[in-house]
């Protein structure tokens, strides 16, 4: 029955139990999403035209989020295409700059795309909007990914991307407030979560519903300050913070588990008082579902361990080979081919 799939879709998407939604069939009718014949005891419930569109967005869109249309600087564009274009831009930028972290940028592309194009309240025309949601890219070396996305969303012209790391550029090697759309400075690992606590407290004091997102690298978790902040955020019950760990299992000199083992990572954060979710971090659908669920957590901060692949998207860049180097011309064209 079409009405069931609509209700399931709404329930799934928003994390509201199905039984609570089913009881409001009348309100669905009031909203003109469904129509039914009173005399037939709801046996002939049908979706209206609007209901049909909503169902397509909720259910079909969810099953194939690559086809979700999202607003970009050049109008509506499928999310899957945005993801690809962002990766291509990262390649161009790092190649042009002569240095930069491709691997760490690639692993975090889907996370940033879902946040910027679906989840966060943002206005590229008004980057300083006081009610906007905030993003702190604590693993600041993934800056090329952030910049490519900010440009795609319309915060600044795309041509600026090619000036990454150039003297006088608005695009510093690591996130900096001189870039429109960057909410907090980073580059020194371990400091973003503490700042998020400050933002979250200020939001609560001001009665603002803004949400603060923090992206941490897994290698970054070696830093002690992260764990100071993890204790503080849960002690203060800051449910307006969502932290996402880009769990790509690599840091500068090799595998995280060989350098300073983090697993069992989930247990650590649970023990610190966080509500922990796991997601496939390069899978849009998994990220959307998990981030939706995480934003419903009350009374404690939430954490998404997003399992990713470092260098995701280009076969020969996966793993740790592009930690901080620019691709050669041959590598660049090969990578381009793979991304197209």
């Amino acid at each position: 029955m079409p009405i069931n799939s609509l209700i399931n879709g709404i329930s799934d998407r928003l994390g509201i139990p199905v039984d609570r939604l089913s009881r409001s069939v009348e309100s669905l009718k009031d909203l003109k999403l469904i129509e039914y014949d009173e005399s037939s005891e709801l046996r002939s419930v049908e979706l209206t035209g609007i209901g049909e569109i909503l169902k397509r967005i909720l259910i079909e869109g969810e099953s194939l989020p690559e086809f979700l249309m999202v607003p970009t600087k050049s109008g509506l564009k499928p999310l899957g295409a945005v993801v690809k274009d962002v990766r291509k831009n990262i390649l161009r930028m790092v190649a042009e700059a002569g240095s930069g972290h491709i691997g760490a940028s690639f692993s975090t592309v889907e996370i940033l795309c879902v946040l910027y194009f679906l989840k966060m309240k943002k206005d590229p025309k008004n980057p300083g909007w006081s009610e906007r949601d905030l993003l702190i890219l604590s693993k600041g070396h993934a800056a090329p990914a952030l910049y490519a996305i900010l440009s795609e969303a319309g915060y600044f012209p795309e041509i600026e991307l090619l000036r990454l790391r150039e003297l006088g550029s608005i695009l510093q090697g690591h996130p900096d407030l001189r870039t429109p759309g960057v909410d907090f400075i980073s580059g020194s690992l371990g400091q973003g979560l503490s700042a998020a606590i400050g933002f979250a407290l200020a939001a609560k004091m001001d009665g603002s519903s803004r949400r603060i997102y923090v992206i941490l690298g897994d290698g970054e978790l070696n830093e002690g300050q992260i764990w100071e902040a993890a204790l503080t955020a849960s002690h203060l019950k800051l449910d307006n913070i969502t932290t996402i760990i880009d769990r790509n299992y690599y840091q500068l000199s090799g595998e995280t588990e060989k350098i300073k083992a983090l697993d069992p990572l989930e247990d650590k954060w649970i023990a610190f008082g966080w509500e922990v979710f796991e997601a496939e971090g390069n899978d849009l659908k998994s990220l959307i579902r998990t981030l939706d669920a995480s934003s419903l957590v009350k009374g404690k901060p939430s954490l998404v361990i997003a399992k990713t692949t470092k260098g995701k998207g280009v076969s020969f860049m996966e793993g740790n080979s592009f930690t901080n180097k620019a691709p050669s011309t041959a590598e660049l064209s090969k990578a381009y081919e793979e991304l197209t």
Partner: protein
Amino acid sequence: MDNLSQIEEFGNVLVRLGEKHRDLIVVDPDVSSSTKTLHFAEIFPDRFLNVGISEQDAVGIAAGLAASGKIPIVSGFSMFLVGRAWEQIANSVARSNLNVKIVATHAGLSPYADGGSHQMLWDVALMRLLPNLKVIVPADAVEASEALVAMIESKGPCYLRLGRSPIPVVYDECCSFQLGRAHLLRDGSDATIVANGIMVSMALEAAEALSLEGIDARVLDMHTVKPLDISSLEKAAFETGALVTAEEHSIIGGLGGAVSEAISEFNPVPVKKIGIDDAFGESSRSYPKLLEKFGLSTRSIMDAIKTIVKERK
């Protein structure tokens, strides 16, 4: 001179400021009973945050609060706040010029009994080399309270250095504090003592004693180490021809360093530096005895002035 505690005064004035500035928030790494921010905590519990013994987190949280338009004051022991969280102050606060106010207590030798682990002798050096930061070392409790008000009313990151122990009162009621403008406390033509913190009262005593010996010493209270009051220094160098700096801090990089750097640029005159001569602190049951041991005394200032005046002749 009577003795008064800078931190007691800080704790009381903070409450007054809390009433006036509703955006003022105190971030505390679990030392409020020592830093005296506990008075603020009692009256404004919603604007007081004890983050536990974690200075790096405290500074980061203050950065987030400041970036949201609040006026955070982080107050903790100088050694741990500046020492441990220096890079957070540099990267999360100073680099974005965020409006975070750092009030460091127990600076210098003032936690005399605790020993070298607690005696911060290089904080002024560490703070003044960071771009955007202002650095204030007040001479007494009165100046500390006026400096606090000026700091809250100024924009941008600022460092205020306070001692733990009661120290002599230099200013009776008010001192018309202005950031970056030194106080001429005593005029003189033979040499100038440029002092801050507890050394200001000793500088005045030294100048008084020297006058009985026929030496006319000028005394400048250089409470703001950054931005440094270059014009007062220039004038002192031109008119008195020799400088002695006096601070409860290492002679490397602090007031003595700042004055020497400035004076060598425009009008080189002899500069002698009274301060801690490249050493760690140690325990003592008496603050004055500890100061004396490290050469921070009226006598050392007098000797330095006499030497510098003699050398010039």
